[in-house]
């Protein structure tokens, strides 16, 4: 089955991203396709390549990156909502340079895009599961 996921919360503060990751991993192991993971609200903070958790703790961003969720064209399907991201200081190279910010922090396994990608995930997938606070 094609399954998509919406994540409303950032890493560490709430269990939402952890649960969603375990769910996604289990779905892939069972042979399902994760069509898209859409990071919305504080969920956009899961895409930060700056995170440095303690050595003895999980690295939530890397866990997501290592799942390697991509589409047929090889594009990442870990999608970060652009409006929510800009509001919270999550920038890719293009948004940073467009806005004159001298840095960017989106992990390359994620991509920034619009809210339409969430609706599209709902249309294209057999199931959409929301994780939040």
């Amino acid at each position: 089955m094609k399954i998509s996921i919406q994540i409303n919360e950032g890493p560490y503060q709430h269990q939402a991203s952890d649960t969603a990751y375990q769910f996604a991993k289990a779905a892939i192991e069972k042979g399902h396709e994760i069509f898209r993971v859409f990071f919305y609200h504080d969920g956009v903070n899961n895409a930060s390549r700056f995170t440095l958790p303690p050595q003895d703790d999980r690295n939530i961003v890397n866990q997501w990156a290592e799942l390697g969720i991509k589409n047929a064209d090889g594009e990442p399907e870990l999608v970060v909502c652009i409006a929510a991201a800009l509001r919270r200081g999550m920038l890719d190279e293009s948004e940073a340079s467009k806005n004159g910010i001298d840095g960017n922090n989106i992990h390359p396994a994620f991509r920034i895009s619009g809210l339409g990608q969430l609706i599209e995930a709902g249309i294209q997938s057999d199931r959409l599961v929301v994780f939040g606070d």
Partner: protein
Amino acid sequence: MLHTVNKSSFERNSLKSCLNIIDDTSVILLIEDGVISAAKNTNAPMIADLAAQGRVYALQGDVEARGISSKLADNIKLVDYAGFVDLVVEHGTAVSWV
């Protein structure tokens, strides 16, 4: 449908809201702090009937993390993450009471 509830019924109203709306064929999966509602406690009557009908699941990892494995209310069905995926596949639209 599959309804997921991720907060303790002592802290929030989400389980209660879910129970107000759930139809006769849907099931509930308790995850994260939602599993606190799967323990034998003063809120257990809220889901006793549904559980007796075999319609209440709880995520095993979350149950163990909260130290309530030996205190589960009657008729709660435990599932792992693979079981969570199966529930999503089998029960159609998923509703999260976040």
